């Protein structure tokens, strides 16, 4: 565990009542929005465990919507998020389900935009900290602390090397890296957390590499 600082103890500035069920929920919504990469138009949000049990009283539902429409955890309009979502034409539906052996504060987003559709599963793991555990069929571990590059690609030799070489050339240092695949030779997902911001130009070059299907750069949460 990294050392705490004074602003971990006094902060975050947030809309209450709970750092895990409200502030963390906003941040999960924010991450899901970033992973979709566009304005969401339709969403099915499935709440698990404590999110399903006590979410109502903690405003977890409105907090998730707030994040999905781009609000920060200290935005005083969070209680009005469902109204604001409706005005934007974003349709949201909530469900409750057992998502299996996951953290008690876990949510599944099924989001559709004008171009993309994505499934994101994430957990609020305490004090407002979050962890994105799954994107579509791939297990990931994104906490939003670092600039993150998510790449959908063909599971072939050399793809990882191409990407890391490109990042090295752009003077971007890799902090963590995880590769998973559906099965041998099929689709694979590469998640890289980096120390430097991933500029649009770098992202564009990544997309042009052979065997890359999609590439997405996610900026760290504030």
């Amino acid at each position, binding site marked *: 565990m990294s*050392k*705490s*600082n*004074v*602003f*971990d*103890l*006094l*902060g*975050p*500035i*947030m*809309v*209450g*009542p*709970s*750092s895990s069920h*409200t*502030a963390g929920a906003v941040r999960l919504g924010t991450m899901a929005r970033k992973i979709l990469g566009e304005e969401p138009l339709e969403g099915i949000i499935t709440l698990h465990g*404590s999110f399903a*049990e*006590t979410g*109502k*009283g*903690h*405003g977890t539902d*409105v907090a998730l919507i707030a994040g999905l429409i781009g609000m920060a955890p*200290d935005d*005083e309009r*969070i*209680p009005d998020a469902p109204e604001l979502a409706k005005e934007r034409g974003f349709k949201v539906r909530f469900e409750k389900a057992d998502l299996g052996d996951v953290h008690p504060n876990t949510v599944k987003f099924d989001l559709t935009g004008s171009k993309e559709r994505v499934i994101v599963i994430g957990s609020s793991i*305490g*004090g*407002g900290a979050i962890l994105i555990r799954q994107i579509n069929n791939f297990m990931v571990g994104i906490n939003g602390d670092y600039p993150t590059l998510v790449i959908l690609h063909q599971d072939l030799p050399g793809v990882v090397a191409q990407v890391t070489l490109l990042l090295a050339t752009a003077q971007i240092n890799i902090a963590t890296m995880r590769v998973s695949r559906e099965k041998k030779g099929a689709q694979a997902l590469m998640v890289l957390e980096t120390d430097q911001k991933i500029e649009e130009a770098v992202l564009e070059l990544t997309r042009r590499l052979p065997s890359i299907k999609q590439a997405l750069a996610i900026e760290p949460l504030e």
Partner: protein
Amino acid sequence: MRAYEDWVVEAESKGLKISSVVLQNQIEELELSGEALFDRMGNNLKVMRESVKIGLSGKRRSASGLVGGDAAKVEEHRKSGSTLIGEVMSGVIAKALAVAEVNASMGRIVAAPTAGSCGVLPAVLFTLEEIFHSDEKELLSALFTAAGLGIIITERANVSGAEGGCQAEIGSAAAMSAAAAVELAGGSPRQTAHGAAIALKSMLGLVCDPVAGLVEVPCVKRNATGAMIALTAAEMALAGVKSAIPIDEVIDTMAEIGHQMSCSLKETAQGGLAATPTGRKIRADFL
């Protein structure tokens, strides 16, 4: 693992306040200037001040309807001239309830150290401001002292109800507030340690048993009692009363007690007040 004692010794040997030692430490760890750190802490102070004001207006209600309006009641009572414990101390209660009510009603607060315990430190701080007419710099310094103790608590124990019970949330907030109050009132670094230790000792064993799992009952009122414990402890420390058990050992004990505490009493809403007939009824009615 660091000890608060190390900071007390460093402050004493250099003739500094605890806040200066914490600030210097954070300048190095966060690689930011003292000015930048003060600026950022200033945002916290601003939001704390706003949350007191909004809460005292008494207009906010929580989603469940269980919480809201009590801060305004106490504030009115205090101004009525019939206060039992005096206007200043009655104001502590009103302020702590105010911030905790804002939190419960989805208003903006500063987690200090958590959202559930957000009312303790602002109540103590702004009460001392009224008494001593402290300036902005002094108030911000006191926040560094409070946060400094909080850092030690997270390193030796935790500030999470799910991990350590309410003692880890309101208890930590009370200890942090006591340390801040002692410094703000002109006490020595050693006295901040005694104040913090006395406050935390008074909160040991407190369980986290929120009715229906909401940050409302008993959380909101515990902010008020936690703030009063902080000031009681600070008063003793300023008078020269010492804690027989040093603060670091009290923190370690808090961690150990949290460890021994049943899971039903750690934010799961399975035991304690949450499991009372009334607690269960509230849950059934609301959910």
